[in-house]
């Protein structure tokens, strides 16, 4: 096959891997974009979700129980981190970054102790191939992509139209005024952070059958999530999804010409150039 014949596959793979990235980045888009919490442990919530799914499958409970466990674990970790650390730091930027960096390292060590140092794979719950434009493609991957779109839509609707979303935006814009109007700002932050944690956990479990589960997988997820949140425009869920798909496409097309690591470095360099030129406040 020549490179040209790979194009439709590259296109599809780019969109799908972009949507998978969007699924991980959604929680961060909510926490960082809407609530301005710089949670460096976000990738570790994702990793713990994948690990929970792995343990459930290993324990014979099956993938769907693992998915549920991952969501619960992600939410529980978020509550724990928020109530015991972030709230007490009053979400100050520098202390939050320092503390969540520490939590990142601690969670990595916990995962290392539980699932061990070797990467493990999880069997997908459904394995079927779909034929699209003459290409066979994993049905499970398409399912994850669709779930990602659905989750993005739900988060967008939540921020835009629900009372919680309204309160979240109000607390972010003017905390004192929001509190004067009777909004329990601490509770709003906690609930929002928990949604972010649940999303990260779900993303980890859903991508576990596609990528391998490893205790160091969180950092990569964190970096790429920040990247798409920043490029897509902070606080804009649609922008996050668009940026993720853009990056997915960029990577899958450059991967036709370059080795995978170099294509990642290229995307990083492009984003860095963007950050260097545009004033972001």
């Amino acid at each position, binding site marked *: 096959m020549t490179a040209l014949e790979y194009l439709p596959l590259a296109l599809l793979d780019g969109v799908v891997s972009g949507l998978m990235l969007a699924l991980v980045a959604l929680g961060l888009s909510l926490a960082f974009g809407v609530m301005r919490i710089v949670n460096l442990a976000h990738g570790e919530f994702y990793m713990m979700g994948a690990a929970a799914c792995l343990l459930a499958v290993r324990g014979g409970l099956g993938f769907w129980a693992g998915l549920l466990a991952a969501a619960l674990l992600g939410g529980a970790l978020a509550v724990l981190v928020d109530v015991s650390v972030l709230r007490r730091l009053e979400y100050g930027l520098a202390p*939050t970054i320092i503390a969540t960096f520490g939590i990142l390292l601690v969670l990595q060590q916990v995962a290392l102790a539980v699932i061990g140092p070797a990467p493990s794979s999880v069997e997908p719950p459904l394995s079927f191939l779909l034929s699209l434009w003459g290409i066979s493609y994993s049905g499970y991957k398409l399912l994850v992509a669709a779930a990602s779109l659905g989750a993005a839509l739900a988060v967008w609707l939540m921020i835009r139209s629900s009372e919680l979303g309204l309160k979240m935006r109000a607390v972010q814009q003017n905390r004192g005024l929001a509190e004067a109007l009777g909004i329990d700002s601490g509770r709003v932050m906690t609930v929002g952070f928990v949604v972010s944690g649940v999303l990260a956990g779900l993303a980890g479990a859903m991508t576990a059958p596609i990528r391998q589960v490893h205790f160091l997988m969180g950092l990569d997820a964190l970096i790429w999530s920040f990247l798409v949140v920043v490029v897509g425009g902070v606080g804009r869920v649609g922008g996050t999804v668009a940026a993720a798909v853009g990056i997915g496409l960029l990577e899958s097309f450059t991967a036709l010409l370059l080795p995978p690591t170099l294509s990642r470095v290229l995307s990083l360099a492009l984003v860095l150039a963007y950050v260097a030129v545009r004033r972001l406040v």
Partner: protein
Amino acid sequence: MAGRSRYSVGTPVLSAIVITALALLYTLLPDYGRTLLARIMVLSIYSYGFAVSFHLLGVMSLGHAALFASGMYGAGLYALRSPVGGPPAALAAGLASSLIVSVILCLVTLRTRGPYTMIATLLLSQALYLLMLHFNEVTGGEQGIVLPRQATVAWQLEGVLGEAGSRYFIALAGLTAAVLSVLLLQRSRLGRILLALRDDEDKLESLGYDRRLYRFIGFSVSGLLSGLSGSLYALTYGYMGAGFAGVMYSVQPILWVLVGGPVIELSPFIGCLAVGILSDLASGLVRGHVLVVGLGLVAIAFATRRLVWMSRLLGRLEGVGR
């Protein structure tokens, strides 16, 4: 806001006492203690490099490992591949490569503020780390490369001091250089301009100073010190690895400079020493070192709410003001 410690004669005298004590301590310590202290001293030079950006520039970088590792590879690869000039030339190569990376780091963060500075620096160091992993035939990847003994400074001085002794005193010389440069910088015109840049860059610019130029200079000093540390690490221990560009080495200096206290001339070393000894004690556990750093960071984040100097220091970070 001029802290008394900054201009008083106390700090230079105290620094001299610490350096002398470290030299004398060599005769008292057992071999294991000498090795541990030598490593801590080499790494604390990196801690000074970070402190220059943290205290003087008001930038909390999450990517300083890129500066450390580029110095390490610059020096190590030169020593490995070129027979010309020996260790001094290798050191120069290390310093030059970290200087280049510090210029890139400065460019990337020139227009960012607050969280974006931290994200941009994290992305940059990750890009360098991925590059090092990719070109693993050159860099040795995570496993790294062991330099032949003949290429290291430790070997060159072995006849005089023995291997452990030469490592120890090279580390001490580097540490002395770092302390001296920070002492001099603090008391120079340049140092005061940097502080003014940190505190109010608009005012400084209106007085006719070029904001970018001084930011470049500040980053270069920070990069040179970090690169000195990386170069000395490669040239005394004869080892370099991509792991040193990883996130662990970017985050540790944050802990060091905060644990050490408010005095920029001494606290980077004191913090590095305290964390180093604690990590060494904990290394009996499985990778206990990482846990110590992780829990230490959470603890220090809480301490920033209690200790006035810490919250002031963090409050001066650009775009973070509370």
